[in-house]
């Protein structure tokens, strides 16, 4: 039998096969830890303290451990953790960044920029503010709950799990946009450890250029989600005479500049379902009450954020085409505090549940 000679040109492709293994700086998965939640605070001397919540696997399910590190910069603190841990720390799967209250007040621009700069942390990681006085206490409290109930803290923000329309969410990249964009700011959720539940929602924090300026309540935060067109299905509004559930909403904006003053008219169409009634309210009573409630809440939030120069709703977006381009950068400081907003709420009752009519009608 004739043996065909092995042609020398085959050596090259075979050599290439070795390149495919990619075992250059390969570290196996069991030598990596993948933290999901990180806490950031400032301690004395302007040093950062980083707290990592690292999930570990064991036969009984998922457990988490808390590791801390300190440093003059964020990377130094993380580096310290990396040196002390016996595994490689991979921040690629980081999902939530919890900011200490004090630190959020003092300004977080450096942190957010560091995250956007490094490719290691995903810009999709969510950011929240912890209202607990001690971030360590928050983490250990949450950790205990997670150990016993096996429920991740992240489910709280997950739209397919525990999220409700009052909870505002913000990603790191949105926060970065809030720092650089002249016409919109970001709102972060404020959380604390709970007594019965893992977390409690304490409303949202308004930011100006990456520094926390104030807090608004959970009910008011619903408006931010509603205005930004996030899903509002399921928000229950309790009125004096009835409880209703929001099923959908639509927002229209009309912006204009008269002379030097910016004006904005917001038309909000709310579709609600009646859940229960107290006494004998007419349909119009319910509509009127809901209208008043939403309007006053809107004005509350607007007033608060105007005094802090934080364009929480992103109203400035509607003035991008109206203002002279070189004036845009002065929007938050010059125009926005003088903005007059008219809110026009229209309520439609889609149905009244399984009962044909409300009492007395």
């Amino acid at each position: 039998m004739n043996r065909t000679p092995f042609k020398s040109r085959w050596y090259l492709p075979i050599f290439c096969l070795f390149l495919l293994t990619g075992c250059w700086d390969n570290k196996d998965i069991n030598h990596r830890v993948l933290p999901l939640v990180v806490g950031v605070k400032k301690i004395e001397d302007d040093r950062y303290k980083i707290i990592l919540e690292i999930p570990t696997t064991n036969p009984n399910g998922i457990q988490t451990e808390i590791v801390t590190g300190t440093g003059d910069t964020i990377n130094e603190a993380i580096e310290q953790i990396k040196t002390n841990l016996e595994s490689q720390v991979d921040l690629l799967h980081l999902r939530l960044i919890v900011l200490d209250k004090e630190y959020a007040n003092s300004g977080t621009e450096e942190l957010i920029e560091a995250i956007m700069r490094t490719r290691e942390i995903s810009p999709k990681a969510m950011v929240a503010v912890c209202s607990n006085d001690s971030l360590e206490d928050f983490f250990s409290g949450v950790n205990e709950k997670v150990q016993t109930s096996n429920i991740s803290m992240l489910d709280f923000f997950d739209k397919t799990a525990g999220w409700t329309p009052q909870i505002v969410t913000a990603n790191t990249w949105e926060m970065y946009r809030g720092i650089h964009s002249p016409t919109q700011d970001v709102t972060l959720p404020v959380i604390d450890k709970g007594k019965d539940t893992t977390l409690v929602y304490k409303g949202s924090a308004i930011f100006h250029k990456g520094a926390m300026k104030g807090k608004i309540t959970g009910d008011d935060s619903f408006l931010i989600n509603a205005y930004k067109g996030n899903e509002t299905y399921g928000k229950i509004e309790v009125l004096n005479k009835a409880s209703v559930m929001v099923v959908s909403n639509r927002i229209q904006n009309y912006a204009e500049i008269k002379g030097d003053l910016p004006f904005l008219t917001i038309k909000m169409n709310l579709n609600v379902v009646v859940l229960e009634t107290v006494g004998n309210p007419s349909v119009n009573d319910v509509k009127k009450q809901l209208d008043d409630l939403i309007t006053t809440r809107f004005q509350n939030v607007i007033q608060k954020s105007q005094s802090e120069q934080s364009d929480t709703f992103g109203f400035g977006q509607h003035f991008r085409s109206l203002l002279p381009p070189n004036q845009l950068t002065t929007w938050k400081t010059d125009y926005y505090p003088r903005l007059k907003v008219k809110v026009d709420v229209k309520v439609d009752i889609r149905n009244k549940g399984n009962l044909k009519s409300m009492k007395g009608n």
Partner: protein
Amino acid sequence: MKKSNLVVILFLIAHIGVIFYIYPLKIMSSIGYGHWLPVLITVSFQLVFLFVYLKGLSYFPNQDLISIFSLERKLLARVLMFPFMIYLFNSLLVVTRAYAEIITIIFLQNTPIWAIDLLIIFIAGYIAIKGFNTILYTALAVFFLFIPIIFFAVVTSFQNAQLLNIFPITPENLTFIYNDQFLISFFAVSPFLFLGFIPSRIDYEPKKIMTAAICLSPVYLLSVYVPILTFGPHTASTFLLPFSTTMDTISIRWLVFDRITIFYMLSIVTFSLIFGALLIWMLSLIIHRLYLPSLRKDWTGILIGALAFACGLILQGFDEIDAVYKFDLPLRVYSLACIPVILLIFGLKKGRKRHEQDSI
């Protein structure tokens, strides 16, 4: 598939690879808002000079740029082609080195840069040495493999777009025209030059190429405007890779993969591998036929690759890569604008001569 269509695919791939990587960055650093104007200028520039180039080539059927320029005297061709050759080499250096740098930034943080650079040059050089047909067929395979990914990436990248970020729409000023960064952005136009080197046995239809170029114009616009719609011009201009950062913000629940960016970026890198192969192939043609005919063509290719790799090792970082772009400016004007015009002049002269001969 007909070879003429393959040329169109190669044309598209070479451009898309460069556009998505360098174009948005350079346009955004040249002007603050009203980016459509520089984009419009780029697109019309490409259409005009592509037309001139194709028109010039059409006077010389079955001849490529080198033989056309050597028609009168070989020395003339040597002089005309020298700056062009330097430009091509710098392009090769920049494409391979900058992409290696980007790969280390995006997903291979710990791999040494020389290893990535070597891999890119090795693959591009290998394709180039195998000849133009190999480049064509690789382009075809790459096109069908990666165009769906790029298409998916571009469609999903609108997820976080806010239409209002398009304002202010009036251009900031007109000083961008002589801004270095704007002039560098014309790098994205340069791949069309390969059309002058296509071997005579391969026919391509200039009309189809022009159509492909028109189809490319929305790609230029998208690459700049998707980041702007997502972040707003003030934020988008702070990124090194605006488009891939935009991809990073996309979250698709039903997709198994968390980061689409890596797929998108790998497709773009593969496209530029093809562009790199084209560059090595063009360079080895020029050097072999005009300057060093005694050297075998494939050895020329290997030498060029080795030289590009060596120069890539010398470049220390993005600032030095930028310096190469700036050094290139006059060469780029010469290659993109003067070469097509000189070619057209050659063509018109030949046309007149033939006309005179006919009338005698």
